[in-house]
């Protein structure tokens, strides 16, 4: 049964140095506030997992919190490069980062396997690309047809963190709009945190609403605006300008560090 706690308590209870952590949200409901709290608590050596590492992971990589990145698309959506992500891979700044990359279909199926507590899932993919040789997938033969397909290994993060629109007092959660892989990430992880825009007396299911019962969640923390500059459909708006501004802020190491100090770390030495 989910405990309703403060964001700092939720992160302190779940995220430890060296953990594999998935902060999910596919272009929507990205848990920025929770990721920033992880940085303020000074976590290090994280294995960061995320289909679409965008600005949040650029920030986490840029301050040196990650030793490893598991992903399928690392870009600033609609804008271009992630400069901190590139700097870490191209120049090892502020520290070298190990990379395991997949296609979106591969990552999605890895979460499905994780949520299903199966060791792998089967798909058509990777064959005939250079990805197959550079990542962790293995061929598998259909025992009925003999067709060769690809197996992708389950993703079972130590911690999954997602953002949603609302929770009730039992920690039942509802999100709506683009649902991404959040349900799978929560069901696949050992420990789970959901940040929410608001707490409600009773969840009324919405059109397109995805309800996740409180008994599969460890901690729920209120965090209004907790996905900005991403957004929570129906409650906050995506700050498209900030996504463009980030391209400028993040190009330069010093400018990036000053921005993080002023807006995220707030004097805390991460």
């Amino acid at each position, binding site marked *: 049964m989910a405990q309703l706690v403060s964001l700092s308590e939720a992160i302190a209870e779940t995220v430890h140095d060296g953990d594999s952590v998935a902060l999910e949200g*596919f*272009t*929507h409901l990205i848990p920025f506030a929770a990721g920033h709290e992880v940085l303020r608590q000074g976590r290090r050596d994280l294995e960061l997992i995320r*289909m*679409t590492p965008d600005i949040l992971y650029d920030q986490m990589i840029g301050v040196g919190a990650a030793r490893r990145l598991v*992903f*399928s*698309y*690392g*870009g600033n*959506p*609609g*804008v271009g*490069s*992630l400069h901190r*992500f*590139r700097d870490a*891979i*191209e120049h090892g700044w502020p520290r070298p980062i190990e990379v395991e*990359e*997949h*296609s*979106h*279909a591969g990552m*999605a*199926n890895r*979460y*499905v396997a994780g949520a299903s507590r199966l060791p792998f899932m089967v*798909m*058509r*993919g*990777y064959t*005939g*690309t*250079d*990805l197959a040789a*550079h990542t962790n997938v293995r061929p598998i033969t259909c025992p009925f047809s003999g067709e060769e397909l690809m197996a992708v290994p389950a993703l079972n993060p130590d911690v999954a963190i997602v953002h949603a629109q609302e929770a009730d007092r039992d920690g039942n959660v509802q999100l709506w*709009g*683009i*649902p*991404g*892989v959040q*349900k*799978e990430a929560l069901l696949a992880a050992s420990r789970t945190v959901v940040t929410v825009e608001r707490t409600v007396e009773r969840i009324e299911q919405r059109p*397109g609403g995805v309800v996740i019962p409180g008994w599969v969640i460890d901690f729920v923390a209120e965090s209004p605006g907790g996905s900005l500059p*991403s*957004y929570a*459909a129906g409650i906050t*708006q*995506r700050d*498209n300008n900030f*996504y463009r501004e980030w391209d400028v802020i993040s190009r330069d190491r010093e400018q990036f560090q000053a921005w993080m100090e002023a807006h995220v770390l707030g004097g805390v030495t991460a």
Partner: protein
Amino acid sequence: MTGRADGGLAASGPLAGGVAEAEYTNGELQTIVAARSLAGKRSCFIGVGRPSTAALLARMVHNPKLVLVYESGTIGAKPYHVPLSIGDGELAETADLVVSVPEMFNYWIGPGQVQVAFLGAAQIDPQANLNSTVIGEYEHPRTRLPGAGGAPEIATGCEEVVVIAPHSKRTFVQELDFRTTRGDRTTLVITDLGVLRPVDGELTLTTLHPGVSVEQVRENTGWDLKAVASVAVSPAPTSEELAALRELVSR
């Protein structure tokens, strides 16, 4: 996040409009030619940038029933504005249905429910294979690109793949630095200079945009590009197309 074709409209220089009456940029023409390729199609998978603009234009001018599918899970999206990201709220709000990412790939893209895909890439080779992973060596890249995204399975799941890319030797290369995505199903490559199609398994120049020469295209291609015997010329934008496109991007 996949399928973003580089090169904004602003980057394209004007082409002399000898054939057309209106002035237009070659970027505008590229978008218009891409939109025309969607006439008569049922559904199209698109990323942001020029593919999105082209697909929205197609719905305005050629094919109002065209179903737009974004990998964020929005099927049948009818955005009024060209979206900045594939997760823009307007896509989900206007979609016929919104599905999870696993469902998108397993039930819709993989099984070929979506007919056409628009893809972009940093590099394309003569077999239309694409690189969106690295420039240089994988372990020590000169430029780390965003990576595969949905492209590999989109390119093998959809019936027809249309690549939209700026025409330069940097992009059209003999050998990819990394093969991210297979080119087997590519039927069309639309650039700011013309159109290539696979002929006997090799991308071949079939159409020039007005005012562009075969030599000019060859100079901007990193392999010894073949051309068909009689190269066609893209019809210049109609005033309806151009007006619709400009209205669309000004929204």
